[in-house]
């Protein structure tokens, strides 16, 4: 019996993906565990493994196809002893006309749909309806909530509901009014109609922008998924998160000498390479993690219904990669040694560049670090990456003339700027956090106890 191979949902929020590459062609035999295709998601390219044995009878979605909806059939797998032609005949036409997920029940029973591997244990049926293209999805909201939203000029679709079964009630609209625009949580269990792509309403149309330049004076590079996601998330962050910024100088001399001492003691491996080589950034990660634990009120995530107070410090670290950036998360960084953090960062950076990070490796976290010190940037302010409440922008360590005990002296100083979500962390609290960070950086031995 032929089986439809469906577009997999590789992360809880995934609704569409690009079919980057087929690694099997029509007629190829496959067994469970074989890599069928590469699927490009928001930020990573993932391999799609077969879970059934058989022969690829028909490829329905050619490689290079963008925005394939989750659960859309992408190929037909026939059993090995099966008539491949018959299998194809009973399979859906290549490129189904409706871009949304097909309703398997509507097809003759001859083609049972088989879900992609459930390894993520995602409640996929909830994602499957993918109502993104359907503007008529019903929003459950109380009459009063609708009226309040209308009066306040809020699109009810964009309000996260806290009533029974996610119904939008009056208090949600009030919270939205007082707390800025709230998008529906993209939680997988909420088959919420996706809000329209988050772009500034006033943004001029593409053709108007192009008209500003002489034809032929530029080339158009279509956005890949990462670029779209970066644009979407940062616009969301700047539109919904009230940022404020705190800058402080940290004297690095003790840290640098501690780093030197630790690196010198690294045993050499058989290839002559030292077992570890700590970077300043590794210290910065650890110091921020310890500071978050020391100031737990700042180790939080804003949600409309309540503050998530995190018990561990999960620190995202921005890694520049060709075409964009990605922020893998060092989990429970406060519990990890500098050497462990250093090793984990090296692994993350390598796999990030190869776009092999798994979604669970770059999602979540309560704060983040963006370090442009290696480019000589002295100070800058970073955009908060939700669900974080803060992000620390780290500048270069620079030798400066400082006044110490009334005398001029030379010290290596690094300026750091904490961008803070004012809904979650107020000014004094942010100052406390960055102060704790400075203390750890300036007395690095405190990090070791």
């Amino acid at each position, binding site marked *: 019996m032929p089986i439809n191979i469906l577009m997999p949902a590789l992360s809880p929020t995934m609704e569409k993906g690009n079919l980057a590459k087929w690694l099997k062609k029509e007629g190829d035999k496959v067994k469970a565990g074989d890599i069928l295709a590469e699927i490009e998601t928001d930020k990573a390219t993932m391999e799609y493994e077969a879970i059934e044995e058989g022969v690829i009878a028909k490829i329905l979605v050619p490689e290079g196809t963008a925005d394939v909806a989750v659960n859309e059939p992408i190929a037909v797998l026939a059993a090995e002893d099966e008539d491949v032609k018959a299998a194809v005949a009973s399979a859906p036409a290549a490129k189904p006309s409706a871009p949304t997920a097909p309703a398997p029940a509507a097809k003759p029973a001859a083609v049972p749909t088989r879900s992609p591997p459930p390894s993520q244990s995602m409640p996929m049926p909830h994602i499957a309806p993918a109502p993104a293209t359907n503007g008529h999805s019903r929003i459950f909201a*109380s*009459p*009063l*909530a609708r*009226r*309040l939203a209308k*009066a306040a000029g809020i699109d009810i679709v964009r309000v996260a509901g*806290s009533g029974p079964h996610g119904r939008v*009630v*009056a208090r949600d609209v009030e919270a939205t009014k007082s707390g800025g625009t709230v998008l529906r949580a993209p939680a997988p269990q909420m088959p919420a109609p996706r809000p329209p792509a988050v772009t500034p309403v006033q943004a001029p149309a593409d053709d108007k922008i192009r008209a500003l330049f002489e034809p032929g004076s530029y080339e158009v590079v279509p956005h890949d998924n990462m670029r779209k996601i970066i644009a979407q998330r940062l616009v969301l962050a700047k539109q919904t998160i009230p940022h404020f910024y705190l800058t402080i100088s940290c004297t690095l001399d003790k840290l640098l000498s501690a780093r030197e001492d630790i690196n010198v003691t690294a045993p050499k491996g058989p290839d002559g390479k030292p077992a570890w080589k700590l970077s300043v950034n590794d210290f910065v990660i650890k110091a921020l993690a310890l500071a978050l634990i020391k100031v737990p009120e700042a180790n939080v995530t804003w949600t409309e219904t309540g503050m998530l107070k995190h018990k561990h410090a999960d620190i995202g670290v921005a890694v520049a990669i060709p075409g964009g950036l990605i922020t893998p998360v060092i989990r429970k960084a406060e519990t990890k040694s500098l050497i462990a953090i250093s090793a984990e960062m090296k692994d993350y950076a390598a796999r990030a560049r190869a776009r092999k990070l798994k979604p669970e490796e770059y999602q979540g976290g309560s704060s983040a670090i963006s370090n442009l010190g290696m480019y000589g940037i002295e100070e800058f302010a970073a955009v908060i990456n939700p669900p974080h409440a803060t992000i620390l922008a780290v500048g270069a360590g620079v030798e400066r003339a400082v006044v110490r005990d009334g005398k001029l002296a030379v010290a290596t100083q690094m300026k750091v700027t904490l961008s803070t979500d004012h809904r979650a962390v107020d000014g004094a609290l942010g100052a406390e956090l960055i102060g704790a960070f400075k203390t750890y950086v300036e007395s690095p031995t405190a990090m070791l106890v």
Partner: protein
Amino acid sequence: MAESFDIIIIGSGPGGYVTAIRAAQLGFKTAIVERAYLGGVCLNWGCIPTKALLRSAEIFHYMQHATAYGLAAEKVSYDAAAVVKRSRGVSKRLNDGVGFLMKKNKVSVIWGEAMIDAPGKVTVKPGNAEAPKGALGPGLYEAKHIIVATGAQPRVLPGLEPDQRLVWTYFEAMVPERMPKSLLVIGSGAIGIEFASFYRTFGAEVTVIEVLPQILPVEDSEIAGFARKAFEKQGIKILTGATVTRLDKKTDSVTATIDGGKGGTQTLTVDRVISAVGVTGNVENLGLEKLGVKIDRGIISIDGYGRTNIRGIYAIGDVAGPPMLAHKAEHEGVVCVEAIKGLEPHSIDKLKIPGCTYCAPQIASVGLTEAAAKEKKLDIRVGRFPFLGNGKAIALGEDQGLVKVIFDKATGQLVGAHMVGAEVTELIQGYVVAMNLETTEEELMHTIFPHPTLSEMMKEAVLDAYGRVLNM
């Protein structure tokens, strides 16, 4: 070794026993401690037996007015003992029902006086009442969560102390040996007014004293004024802005000195006095002070989920503050255990708790009174509809009453509803559902109410608020 539970609830009133059932439904190993009666005051000495008494009064009233319906009832009389006996029988039946519900839900009943020694530990000492079959005895018990649901008792004012003989609380008022010829009721809240209404129907000369300028002080003043006129027409004397300063007891009568009201200081001699000046939380002898549980003026301080300031100790119902109503206690208990379970329930919105008084005429309300809405600076629309305009009310011979609704002008939110008249206690729930679903006037106007019913007045009042009333 002490027997261990997930949740122990102290007190088996409507708050406590409903909390126990919900806790058991959620899979908690649950026990309930009771010292006197399963079902607490509500079932045994409050809501339920008074409704039985008032039903007798109502039927007696109809028998006396049989000719108004074209009927004849001669030599109409009553047997006070039989009226009380029926009321006690109703309580007994429900009391047994609670025992059955505890068994059905596998809730252990522990019999005796509870004392919290420490978070997680409860000592139960022998009480005075006889234990029901199958109850656990005194001893040390453990529970991760302890919920105090001990209810309330009549407030006692100095100089007006009840003596069980001449000066009654609701306990004695509920089981009179004979109907007093004259009665003074101190306090015009729900309890005072219900007894005033009951005894007046059975022929007593009733005087009600209220310290505030309005009877039924929590009700909308227009509704309370309407009710006052009806009571006075029935022959109940009402003195507002008045206090009883002194009670002089004789063998079988009491002379009260009353200050204020119209006419300065006066004395009044009556057979019996009912003190109905409110209730106060049962916070004593539970070990709460020693544990440092925060208590404010006889009320345990809680957050929206029944949590006290001490981890593992919770309070719900009357002992956790007003409004002291059984249905508020029940819901508070359900929210409390659901929060313990991690279900993230919403805390109670006190503006959506209905209140009912079962005098004749009945009074029912929910949400803001007109005065409270104005105090909140709300711009409001008020709609009214009188029973006089309702066919069913006229057919019932109950054409005296009023339905009043209050909307927020800007949003069309129903912020309050107030009713006085026959059967309004059974009607109010329609508005409560509407408020909880956050309907606006539009949905209420689109709702079809059945004809002929008293409920049609509820729609008419809404229409009236928007200048669209039909049958007036």
